[in-house]
Every structure is written in structure tokens, then in C-alpha cells.
């Protein structure tokens, strides 16, 4: 059974209760359709459990398959240093079919970022090492496609539907 090798730290993007007894980690790709499908599912799960879980998102861009995935991940990391990771994360998934420079500029304007600063960060690959570090950590942890979820550090290999995932989290909370 594959396990999470990189512990959760303050470098992570965390949503929810950091003291929760259950942590749900997603390794995801902004261009991956299955991740797009998992996006509302994670929201439902978070709503269901409220403060009983924390959710962590890490980058796993499958760049040979998804040409926009790497840049989209860097856009989200740029937003993170402005304290707006989750807003950008959500907007990228909600506009998954329009990933590209025009969208990034539009979203940057929406979040009141300096678009020139974003363009510079993308051109200089400022956040590419952060994204690569997430990817390598995911490989070590047995990420086997996108999205890959971990529930309390155990890779979740069962079906990705609401009932199955809620059940698995309930089990983790009970143990």
C-alpha cells in the first residue's frame, strides 16, 4: 500500500481545520478532466465533514499530456504568495476548459494582482521548482495518475465517488 512520504507542513496549501483528525491530500493537475470532475466532489466532502477534516492540495502536472498544466500550477503558486491560493485554485478548475494566457490575465485582474508581475513570474519560471518539488514528492508517494488522494497518508485506491470517499474518511476518523 502506497503511503504519503512528504509530511504535511506549513509549506502546504491547507484548507479546513489543521488540527483535524483526518487529512485528505489531493495530488492534482489543473488540466486533467478527472481532477476537474473531482473538484466539486472535494467541495461536497469538505462541506459534509466541516472541521473534522483538513484538505491539502499538491501539484502533479502531467505535462506531456496536458500542455497547460504546468503554467496553471505556477499561476496558482503565484496566487499563493499573495495569500489567494484557494481562490485561484477554484477559479482555475471552474474555468478548466479555457486554460491559457488570456484566462490567467483575466483571473489575475479579478483577484487584483499586477498582471505584469504574474507574467514576469511565469516567464522567469519563478514557481517551477515549487511545482516540480510537489511532483517529485508525489512520485515518491506512489501517485498513480491524477487525481490521487491520500486519506491520513494512505493512498486511496477505491472508486472516486462521494459515498466511497465519505465512507473511507469516516473509517479513518473512527480509527
Amino acid at each position, binding site marked *: 500500500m502506497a503511503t504519503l512520504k512528504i509530511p504535511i507542513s506549513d509549506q502546504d496549501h491547507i484548507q479546513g481545520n489543521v488540527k483535524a483528525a483526518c487529512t485528505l491530500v489531493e495530488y492534482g493537475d489543473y488540466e486533467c478532466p478527472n481532477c476537474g470532475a473531482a473538484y466539486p466532489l472535494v467541495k461536497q466532502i469538505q462541506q459534509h465533514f466541516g472541521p473534522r477534516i483538513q484538505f491539502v492540495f499538491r501539484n502533479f502536472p*502531467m505535462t*506531456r*499530456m496536458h500542455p497547460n498544466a504546468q503554467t496553471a500550477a505556477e499561476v496558482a503558486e503565484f496566487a499563493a504568495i499573495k495569500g489567494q491560493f484557494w481562490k485561484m485554485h477554484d477559479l482555475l478548475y471552474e474555468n478548466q476548459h479555457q486554460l491559457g494566457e488570456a484566462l490567467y490575465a483575466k483571473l489575475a485582474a479579478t483577484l487584483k494582482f499586477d498582471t505584469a508581475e504574474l507574467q514576469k513570474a511565469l516567464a522567469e519560471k519563478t514557481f517551477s521548482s515549487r511545482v516540480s518539488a510537489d511532483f517529485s514528492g508525489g*512520485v*515518491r*508517494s506512489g501517485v*498513480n495518475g*491524477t487525481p490521487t488522494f491520500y486519506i491520513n497518508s494512505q493512498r486511496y*485506491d477505491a472508486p472516486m465517488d462521494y459515498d466511497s470517499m465519505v465512507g473511507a474518511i469516516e473509517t479513518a476518523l473512527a480509527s
Partner: protein
Amino acid sequence: MSELLSPGTPAPDFSLPVTPDQKLSLHELRGKPVILAFYPADWSPVCGDQMALYNEILPEFQKHEAELLGISVDGVWCHTAFAKDRNLHFPLLADFEPKGAVARAYGAYFDQAGITERALFVIDKDGVIRWSYLSPLAVNPGADGILEALEALKK
């Protein structure tokens, strides 16, 4: 489930088609670690696909100078189309005729379904199997085990 060849066993040599007019033999890769990834079939769903994943991870394998070979019972034209569609940058070998003969030699053939198991082998530079792993057919095993095995080769 099949009984895979275990660590310490010399890896059975083979020569299989890698393109419509080319064959690749295991012994040609002597001197480098080799990763053999048996998988059930080309064209499984995209995002969870094991070969697409390994394609992304190739740079990590290359840090160990390891050669990755994918093997299934699909024919060479099928592999060619699959590799082109998924932009794969490593060879896919056709264990097509006699069907599954190489998989059988490694204990990685799933008779009832007529396909190869999802089985991984890491072979050292001298041609000896150093690690093997049989994954449930439905579970893409990822690459963590392969990387750990490649690291262990250096010790």
C-alpha cells in the same frame, strides 16, 4: 495470481518487436538497470494510465540511467498508435507471438484473461532481477517501488 520471478533470479532474455521493423533484446541493455513494466493493455483510460504516468516520470528514471520498457500482448501497430497518441518517449514491446511468451517466462501472464499482469521488475546492470512487484490488475502501482529499487541498486 501469478508467481513472479523473484529477486536474485537471472532475468530471462528475450527479443521482441519494438517497431514494425525492429526488435529489441534484453541483453542489448546490459550495463544499465532496466525497468520492465508489464501492463494489461494499451488504451486504458487516460489520466490513470500507468504508461502515461511513467512517461512523465522518465526524467526520474533517467537519473539512475535506467531504461524503461513497457510490455503487453498488444501488437506492434497497436503499440505504435498508442505511443504516438500518448506521446510516449520509451519503447513498448509486443509480446504478441507466441502470445505472452515473455510474460509467462517472468511469471507475469494472466491466463484466464489472456493478458499480461500488472507486474514490475527492476533488473540490474548484470541482468539479475533485483526487485519485482505484482499489482492488482485494476490498480496502477505508481513508481515509488521502482525508484526505491533503483536507489537500492547503488548500495
